[in-house]
């Protein structure tokens, strides 16, 4: 039998990275406490992946009436690796890091 060589000269994955779910790497899960969240989107800016995304204003409660008209945020646990940058950057400490085992993973 002839030797079978890969077609490409270098490993090229044609599978988009959205197919490669990396949330399972997480040790700590960031949980947003919406009663504190001021919808400033700093967590969205700092997330090194794209694991924080916008949700419609009414999706979650708001601490203040004036904030209720703005989009809120949610975390995509399929891709969040639990780096904790969002929790560290949050100016009102609305994001808590919870040990994954203590919440029982629901990937």
């Amino acid at each position, binding site marked *: 039998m002839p*030797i*079978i*060589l*890969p077609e*490409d*000269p*270098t*490993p*090229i*994955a*044609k*599978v*988009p*990275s959205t197919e490669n779910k990396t949330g399972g790497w997480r040790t700590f899960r960031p949980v947003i406490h919406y009663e504190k969240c001021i919808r400033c989107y700093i967590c969205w800016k700092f997330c090194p992946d794209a694991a924080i995304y916008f949700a419609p204003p009414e999706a979650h409660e708001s601490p203040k009436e004036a904030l209720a008209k703005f989009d809120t945020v949610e975390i995509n646990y399929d891709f969040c690796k639990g780096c904790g940058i969002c929790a560290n950057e949050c100016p009102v400490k609305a994001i808590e890091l919870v040990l994954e085992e203590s919440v029982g993973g629901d990937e």
Partner: protein
Amino acid sequence: MKMILTGNESAAWGARLSRPKVIAAYPITPQTSIIETIAAFIANGEMDARYIRVESEHSAMAACIAAQNTGVRTFTATSAHGLALMHELLIWASGARLPIVMSVVNRAMAPPWSVWTDQLDTMAERDSGWIQLYTQNNQEVLDSIIMSYKIAEKHNVLLPTMVIEDAFILSHTAEGVDVPDQKKVDDFLGEYDPAFKLDPDDPAGFGSLIMPEGPYMEFRYKMALAFEDARNEIKKVVEEYNETFERNYSPFIEEYRTEDADAIMVVLGTIGSTAKDVVDRMHEKGKKVGVARVRYFRPFPAEELRMLARKTDMLGVVDRSYSFGPGADLYAETRSVLYKHTDIPVKGYVMGLGGRDITPQILEKVFDDMLSVAKEGVVDKEVEWVGLHGDERWS
């Protein structure tokens, strides 16, 4: 156009004429004037390229890898500790099959600190998967960069290339260099045609994870085949360049008075030009010696060295570096490829470390030693350190 250029200016001109679109570099003596000259070309509007200032050589190579992946030519330059810091990314660049061309100015590794020429830095990267070419004069530096892009970019090669020059002996010494016409170089090189590139319309990830049962071994095997193909492409491109630009390069080994030589000295880089001069003096005294200057260390010119060994009774291999085991790099590999192909004695000479001058006088003594080994037919000492303080034999 004839210009008076240092080795580093010649490297910068070689890069300029090849039209890379991205240069990412970090300064280090004795390479710095290459990237300074290129920065000036760009600032003056003489070169259309993006110059990325980075915080280290590791980042310089990372930036070149990323830029080359978008489908453009890139160039960088480094020396010694900078090259060592790049080590991880050198292997990435070759495994990712990106035909990056880089100037490396040979410099000794510390401690003790030394900025002078010594080949340990590039020898330590011989298994990084890069083509390695050692040059002898400033003209060869310039021409080799242009040729290297053409060879590296062939779709059956796709291997990055180091064009290596000796510190100060070439890098900071000016001589007359024929700078080819831009139009002629454009015609010779053509537009860069990447075998693959990042494309937002066709998303892909490069260098992704491969499990042990996946084709990791096969990718490495393909690289080994590419090094074999590179031999043929080097021959073709050198021949084409010689014809187009009226040069006279031998692809792998430049031989000088090797026909009927009783002993031949095998060298890398600028030692070749000193040795050729000494050979002429030796012939005047009736001593038949020759020089073989190895240009490509990777791919290693195995067949060419076997042919060389058939012409003579003895090979003396000079290394400007030392390997703590087999003795020295060019010596050990030369002996290895000659195994079972010849019975002639092969002796290694380690000299010129840390930039210590390799003078005609010392080479003459080495040639005399080689002739006595040739006469005896046996090697007295496999690897000899030449010119150590107090060693009267070579002084």
